[in-house]
């Protein structure tokens, strides 16, 4: 469509005025369509800068959850003004669709006295200054990352980017959650902000000064606890204080206090191996809190724990934080668990991967304590699901392609048995199901489910539409076929849709002896991926190729060899008979 591209160009060049004018010119549904085609974070930045009328017209034509979240990227007075200017029919429909609690909440917000802000804003002109994500003026951000990026140098083929240039700030008083699929570089981002890993480009400022100049007052809680097994609980907590050259009496006092605050009084002389996982992570928290960090970093702190333990630990952390029992001014958490993020965070950043970049950055205005099953809670969870399953943004636009080469499409690292299982489940549900419901039913985190979904869509067996997963005719045929037919369908789907496997197959078919050392393909992939990722890619490719009976892999000689399609079936039979 002709108006889609210009809008993108405007947005990518930050020409908000032109973009706003363009949306105004278009008829409302076309404007909504154009707007929705933008990557989410661009939607947000644009929405924040739109004049109230344009925003109101858009708000009427977008799905209710999108409208709700977008609205909250602007300050309350703006929200009131926008809702006010919405077309009455649209407004009624929007309120109708909202879950009860959310509606109540919005009503409360709208009832607040509009302070002088909207008038001022409107007086300033059409473009309202961005409001939501940037902190209020009197609160200086603690950490400011400017254009940080991370790439790995490799010989011959130029650097591989894992984190695209990113701006990010951490302001005081919030819990910030960084969400992303596994391998999206979120842990690396945390380490850059905490000063553990230097970025390859850009700079990280703590209180306006480069991180190298002043050691940041930060502490990290690790997924694996990272306790020293040969030190007692007390010695573990004291170790960081020793590093600060603190005298033993004061050190003791602080450590005991920290241990008491996480409920570990009486465990001082135990060794970590005598403790359960939950207790170990409590020690991890005590160790971090003992240094009284300004920012507390947490790298998937609950994901090594069982569900109940994680739940109670989250609750206790929140209690410490909300009760202001710890001097920490900000918490930065990395997680792949959407519900955990919505449960804890005041602000959520969703990362794209390959390379990592910010896809969305929004606030969760729910008050604590939050309830798991509440409609409002689910609204956010559902919304983030939809966001994360949205196809990756298309490359090729000027602002996006800056310097980075188009990555070789990556294979999700999953076994195809799970893909088949998902397709069967979907077929049983009539071919279409909400992703969040699937995840809920399977008790799977987004980290585990998304790669399976990705494999299904990659093979064109299913497609994702606004958070729903839908079976394609090919997928339906696959789900209903017997084992032999499945192999054939799978082989066809792979050759049609997966460039890497098509390439391997083509090369093998082209050679006279139909074999090739696997090293060759690994080298090819290393031009696009880091060493470890290339290795994983090749392993996944071998696993898929074997599943599809495309080629065989001999671990002794480390070679791939083509399997003649006709023989394969017979051999399969003979194997079954044996």
């Amino acid at each position: 469509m002709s108006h889609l591209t210009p809008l993108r160009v405007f947005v990518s060049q930050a020409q908000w005025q032109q973009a706003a004018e363009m949306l105004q010119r278009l008829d409302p549904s076309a404007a909504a369509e154009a707007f929705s085609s933008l990557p989410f974070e661009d939607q947000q930045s644009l929405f924040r800068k739109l004049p109230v009328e344009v925003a109101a017209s858009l708000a009427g034509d977008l799905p209710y959850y999108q409208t709700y979240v977008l609205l909250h990227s602007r300050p309350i007075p703006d929200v009131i003004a926008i809702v006010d200017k919405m077309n009455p029919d649209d407004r009624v429909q929007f309120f109708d669709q909202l879950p009860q609690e959310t509606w109540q909440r919005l009503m409360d917000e709208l009832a607040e006295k509009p302070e002088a802000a909207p008038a001022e804003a409107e007086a300033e002109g059409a473009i309202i200054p961005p409001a939501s994500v940037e902190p209020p003026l009197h609160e200086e951000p603690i950490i400011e990352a400017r254009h940080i990026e991370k790439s790995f140098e490799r010989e011959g083929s130029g650097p591989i980017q894992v984190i695209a240039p990113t701006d990010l700030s951490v302001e005081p008083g919030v819990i910030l959650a960084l969400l992303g699929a596994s391998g999206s570089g979120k842990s690396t981002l945390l380490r850059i902000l905490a000063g553990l890993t230097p970025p390859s480009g850009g700079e990280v400022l703590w209180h306006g000064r480069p991180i190298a100049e002043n050691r940041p007052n930060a502490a990290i809680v690790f997924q694996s606890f990272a306790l020293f097994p040969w030190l007692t609980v007390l010695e573990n907590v004291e170790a960081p204080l020793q590093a600060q050259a603190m005298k033993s009496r004061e050190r003791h006092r602080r450590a005991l206090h920290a241990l008491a605050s996480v409920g570990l009084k009486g465990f001082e002389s135990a060794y970590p191996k005598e403790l359960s996982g939950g207790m170990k992570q409590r020690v991890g928290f005590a160790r971090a809190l003992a240094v009284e960090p300004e920012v507390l970093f947490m790298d998937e702190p609950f994901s090594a724990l069982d569900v109940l333990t994680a739940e109670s630990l989250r609750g206790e952390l929140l209690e410490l934080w909300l009760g202001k029992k710890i001097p920490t001014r900000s918490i930065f958490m990395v997680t792949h668990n959407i519900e955990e993020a919505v449960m804890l965070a005041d602000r959520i950043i969703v990362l794209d991967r390959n390379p990592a970049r910010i896809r969305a950055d929004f606030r969760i205005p729910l008050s604590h304590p939050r309830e798991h099953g509440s409609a409002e809670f689910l609204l956010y969870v559902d919304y983030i699901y939809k966001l994360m399953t949205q196809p990756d943004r298309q490359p090729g636009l000027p602002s996006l392609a800056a310097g980075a080469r188009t990555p070789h499409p990556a294979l999700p690292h999953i076994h195809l048995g799970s893909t088949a299982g998902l397709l069967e489940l979907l077929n049983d549900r009539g071919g279409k199901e909400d992703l969040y419901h699937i995840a809920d039913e399977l008790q799977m985190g987004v980290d585990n489910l998304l790669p399976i979904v990705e494999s299904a869509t990659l093979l064109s067996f299913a497609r994702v539409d606004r958070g729903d997963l839908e079976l394609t005719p090919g997928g339906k045929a696959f789900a209903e076929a017997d084992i032999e037919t499945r192999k054939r369908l799978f082989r066809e789907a792979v050759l049609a849709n997966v460039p890497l496997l098509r390439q391997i197959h083509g090369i093998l078919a082209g050679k006279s002896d139909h074999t090739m050392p696997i090293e060759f393909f690994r080298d090819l992939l290393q031009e696009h991926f880091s060493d470890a990722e290339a290795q994983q890619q090749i392993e996944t490719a071998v696993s898929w190729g074997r599943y599809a009976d495309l080629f065989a892999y001999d671990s002794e000689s480390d070679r791939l060899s083509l399997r003649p399609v006709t023989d394969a079936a017979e051999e399969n039979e003979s194997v079954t008979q044996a």
Partner: protein
Amino acid sequence: MEQPFRSRLFSLVPLPASRAGAASLLRDLPIIVAGLAVFYSLVALTRYWNGPVNTQPEIHLNPSALPGYALHSVERITVAYLLSLAVTLVYAYVAAHNTRAERFMIPLLDTLQSIPVLSFLPSVMFAMVALFPGRQLGVELGSILLIFTGQVWNMAFSVYSSMKGVPVDLMEASRSYGFSWWQKLVQLELPYAAIGLVWNSMMSVAGGWFFLMACEMFVLGNHDLRLPGLGSYLQTAANAGDTGAILWGVTAMVAVIVLMDQLIWRPAIAWSQKFKFEQVEATEIPRSPILDLLRRSRIIGRAERALAMPAREGLMLHFAAAREHSPESAASGGVLKWVGRAVAGVALAGIGYAIWRMALALATLSRSDLLTIVQGAGATFLRVESSLLLAALWTIPVGVLIGTRPRLAAIAQPVAQVTASIPATALFPIVLLLLIRVGGGLGVGSIVLLLLGTQWYLLFNVIAGASALPTDLREVCDVFGLSKPERWRKFILPGIFPYLITGFITASGGAWNASIVAEYFHFRGQTFSTTGLGAVISRATDAGNVSTLLGATAVMAAMVVTLNRLVWRRLYFLASTRFRLEA
């Protein structure tokens, strides 16, 4: 203020009640006596070290002289071990932390490890005697350094690889919490390296006993040097053909080794369990009554609180404060960098000069010398491999038998451990006596001697592998009624493969090293020898023939390193990938 003196002395700890005091005194008695004994022997040794040089003391074969000799040998091995420990820590730390140094330090370690002890003898001796002319200390230090060269390499290697393998998350934790290099070392790197270090220390000291005879009594050119000790006692007894004295010597040595095992290594192993890197507690923990005694002792506890703890605290805070004040200071970093460069430059120049001199020395080798070396290399190669084969032939069935039957293992394991702790060199004279009586020459006999030294590595590894064979797989074999040969081929052999390879690697290295004492032997006043690289090296040492010694040593080092790279390392990789039994 009634007892000002007392209160000043013991103000750090609460005074014990008098009855508890008596009980604890009784408990501490062994420790006090042991302390006094150590002190007395130090005084005696100092007197001896400062005495005038006496290169040919008469070695008395009277058993009553044995305790004194034992003391001398223990002293040498202890000092050599402490020296090894110090060098290990510095070498491993630098290699693990400086990438540029690492690049040549590790291959160097690999090479040095493959050079047999005797090859170091002439240079070490001459240097030490020149340093302390006319003092017993010179010869003594030479002997100690010789023992040191046999002990240090595997310890350094173990600590280096532990330091490189510190888990990433612990490393990140220590960095994010701003540990000083000292704190990182004592709270993370050393604890992580502790268990490997203790085991390798045991192996190293056992190696020290193995080569003790060669290190205490040797011919150097026209000097016939000997030092009072168990090794020279055994050697003298062998020369005299005095079977009774040999047996006395072996008994004394075994007694000392068992005693050291109980008093030092068992406690050390039990103590090091604290550093096991595990998240759950193990069910079976090695224990040691001696360690319990030490732990319960009041004297030691008091000394720790009064001396060790303040020192530890002081060091920790000192380095932490130093780090706080200058986080990676550029100036001192620059100076350090220049110092490092200067040291590296001097070392490189030294090595270059040494290579040049070595080339000159090697150039003097005649054609026939070269032929002897090559022939010797071939013969020793065959001998080493056949001794490995023979060892495998008996240790695999026996080891599997023991390993798969826990009750048998409970009896057999301690017996095997004591037997293995007897240094094979001490048994050589007895074996030689038998061989001569049977009529076999040293050519075949040395295979038996090699076997004596190396079979234990294999046996213990096979036992460990067999006891780790998973029960479910054994049950599968029962269910499918696998025949005996099939069971061995499909289950047992692949199952113990990784352990077998580990055993073979250690045994192969040990066998090459042992060839220098197995192929050339002074016995009953004459010299027994056979064709072999070890014999070439020993003979060259005796004759002070530096160029042949160099050439033969270079060939041996080259062969060991090549074999390691081409055969063992590949097999090890295979073992750790395909044949690994995942838990």
